[in-house]
C-alpha cells in the first residue's frame, strides 16, 4: 500500500472537483505570506527585557533585522534546492514539511524570546522558517498548473495572491495577539509566536491533506487541448537540470529579478518617500495608508494580471509590465514636482500591481517555455532571482539616496535619480523579454524519458 505522503495516495479520481485545489494552495500561501509582516514584531522585541522601554541588554533593531533577511535568503535557497525533491516526492510531503518548518520556526523563536537568545530566532524563524517559506511557496504551483491547463495564469495567480494576502492577515493578527498577551512582565511576543506557530502549522497541514494531483491522462471536462501549438507555448518538457543549460532560464531569471527590484524600490521606501516628496501634505498616518493601498494593489495585481496573461499571452503581459512600468517610473518625479498627489498615488499603485503580477505570472511563463512536468522545480530555482532582488532593490534605493543627500541634494529631490534608474532597469527587462524565444530542440526530453521520469 502506498505511503500516506506518496504521489499514488494523492492522485485524484477522474471526477474530482479541481476547484478544491486552489483553496488547498491558499491555505499554505496565506500562512507563509506572514513573512512580509514580520516587521510588526521588531519594535516590541527591542523591549523584551525593559518592557516599557529598551533596556541596555535588549536587542537592537539592526540585530533583529537579520531574522527577516535570513528568512528570505533561506526561502530562495530551499526553493532552489527543494524544487527537485518536490518533483520527486509530490506536493503533500513538501507542504507537510513546509508546515513543520514554518510552525516549528515560530516555536523555536518563541523559546529564543523566552531565553533571550537571538541565535535561536536566527535559526528558528530565519533558517528553519525560511526553509518552510521556500518549500511552501513552490509546492502547490506545478500541481495547480496541471489541474488548470486551460487557465494556468489564473490558477497560479490565485495561490501567489495568497502570499500577498498573508501579510494582510499576519500583521493585524500579530498586533492583536501581542496586545492580548501583553502584561507588566511581558511584551507578548513569545506568546504570539506560539499561537501563530500552532495556527499556521494546522492551516498548512490542512492544505497538505487536501492537495491532490490529477491522474496522468486527465483534462478538464469539455476542454480539448489546442491541436496546433501556440507560439511560445510548448507541449513538450524540459528536464529541471537541462533547463539551467538554456538561455531562456537566465532571461526569465533576469526578467523576474528586474521586475522585483523595481517594485521593491518603491515598496521598501513608500512611507518615507511620499512624506519627503510631498513635504507638509502627507502625515505619517496618511503615509501608512499609502503603504496599505500599495499592499492591496500588490495583492490584487497578482490575480488580475496573471489571469489576464491567459488571454494576452505571457510575453505580451511582461512587455506591458516593462513598457508601462518604465513610463510610470519616469513620470513619478514630474508628478511630485507638480505636487500632483493623485497621479503620484495612482501611478505607484499601478506599478505595485505589476510587481505582484510579475511574481504571479512567472510560473505560467515557465510552464509555457519548459513544459509542465518539472515546472515546480524550475520555478524553485528561478526564485533565487527574488532573493537577489530582495538585496539589490533596497541597496540601490538606500545607497543612491544617501549618496545624493551627502552631496547636497534636497531630500525631496533625492529620489529622482533612483526612480530613473528603476525605469532603466525595467527597460533592460523589456529587452530580456524581447530576446525570449522557444527552447532549442536539443533541450526537450524524449518521449520515453518523459514516461519514465528519467533524469537527463
Amino acid at each position, binding site marked *: 500500500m502506498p505511503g500516506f505522503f506518496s504521489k499514488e495516495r494523492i492522485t485524484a479520481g477522474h471526477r474530482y472537483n479541481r476547484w478544491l485545489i486552489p483553496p488547498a494552495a491558499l491555505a499554505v500561501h*496565506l500562512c507563509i505570506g506572514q513573512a512580509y509582516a514580520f516587521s510588526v514584531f521588531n519594535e516590541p522585541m527591542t523591549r523584551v527585557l525593559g518592557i516599557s522601554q529598551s533596556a541596555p541588554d535588549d536587542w537592537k533593531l539592526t540585530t533583529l533585522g537579520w531574522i527577516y533577511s535570513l528568512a528570505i535568503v533561506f526561502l530562495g535557497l530551499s526553493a532552489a534546492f527543494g524544487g527537485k525533491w518536490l518533483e520527486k516526492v509530490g506536493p503533500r510531503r513538501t507542504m507537510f514539511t513546509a508546515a513543520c518548518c514554518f510552525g516549528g520556526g515560530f516555536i523555536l523563536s518563541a523559546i529564543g524570546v523566552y531565553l533571550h537568545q537571538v541565535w535561536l530566532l536566527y535559526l528558528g524563524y530565519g533558517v528553519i522558517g525560511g526553509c518552510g517559506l521556500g518549500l511552501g511557496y513552490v509546492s502547490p504551483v506545478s500541481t495547480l498548473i496541471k489541474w488548470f491547463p486551460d487557465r494556468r495564469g489564473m490558477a497560479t495567480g490565485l495561490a501567489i495572491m495568497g502570499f500577498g494576502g498573508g501579510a*494582510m492577515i499576519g500583521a*493585524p493578527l500579530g498586533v492583536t495577539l501581542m496586545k492580548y498577551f501583553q502584561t507588566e512582565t511581558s511584551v507578548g511576543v513569545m506568546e504570539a509566536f506560539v499561537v501563530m506557530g500552532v495556527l499556521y502549522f494546522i492551516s498548512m497541514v490542512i492544505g497538505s491533506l487536501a492537495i491532490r494531483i490529477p491522474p496522468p491522462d486527465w483534462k478538464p471536462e469539455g476542454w480539448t487541448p489546442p491541436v496546433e501549438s501556440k507560439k511560445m507555448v510548448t507541449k513538450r518538457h524540459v528536464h529541471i537540470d537541462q533547463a539551467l543549460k538554456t538561455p531562456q532560464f537566465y532571461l526569465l531569471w533576469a526578467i523576474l529579478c528586474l521586475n522585483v527590484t523595481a517594485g521593491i524600490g518603491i515598496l521598501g521606501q513608500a512611507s518615507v518617500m511620499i512624506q519627503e516628496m510631498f513635504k507638509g501634505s502627507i502625515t505619517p498616518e496618511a503615509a501608512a*495608508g*499609502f503603504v*496599505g493601498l500599495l499592499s492591496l494593489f500588490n495583492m490584487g495585481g497578482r490575480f488580475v494580471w496573471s489571469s489576464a496573461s491567459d488571454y494576452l499571452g505571457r510575453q505580451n503581459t511582461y512587455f506591458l509590465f516593462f513598457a508601462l512600468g518604465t513610463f510610470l517610473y519616469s513620470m513619478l518625479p514630474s508628478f511630485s514636482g507638480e505636487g500632483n498627489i493623485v497621479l503620484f*498615488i495612482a501611478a505607484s499603485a499601478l506599478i505595485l500591481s505589476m510587481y505582484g503580477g510579475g511574481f504571479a505570472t512567472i510560473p505560467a511563463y515557465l510552464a509555457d517555455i519548459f513544459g509542465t512536468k518539472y515546472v515546480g522545480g524550475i520555478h524553485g530555482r528561478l526564485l533565487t532571482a527574488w532573493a537577489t532582488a530582495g538585496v539589490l532593490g533596497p541597496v540601490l534605493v538606500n545607497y543612491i539616496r544617501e549618496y545624493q543627500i551627502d552631496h547636497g541634494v534636497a531630500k525631496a529631490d533625492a529620489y529622482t535619480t533612483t526612480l530613473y534608474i528603476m525605469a532603466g532597469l525595467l527597460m533592460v527587462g523589456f529587452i530580456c523579454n524581447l530576446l525570449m524565444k522557444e527552447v532549442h530542440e536539443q533541450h526537450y526530453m524524449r518521449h520515453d524519458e518523459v514516461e519514465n521520469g528519467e533524469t537527463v
Partner: protein
Amino acid sequence: MTASENQHQENHAVLLVLFWAYVLIPLGWGVYQTFEKALALFA
C-alpha cells in the same frame, strides 16, 4: 447518474463551499483591515 453518485457530488459541493470559506474569510478580514488603514490616505 446513480443515487450514490448524486450524494457524492453533493458532499463535494458542500466541501467546496466550506473550504473556500475557510480561506476567504481570513483573507477578507485581512483585506478589510488593510483597506481601513488605506482610508487614512484620503482622510
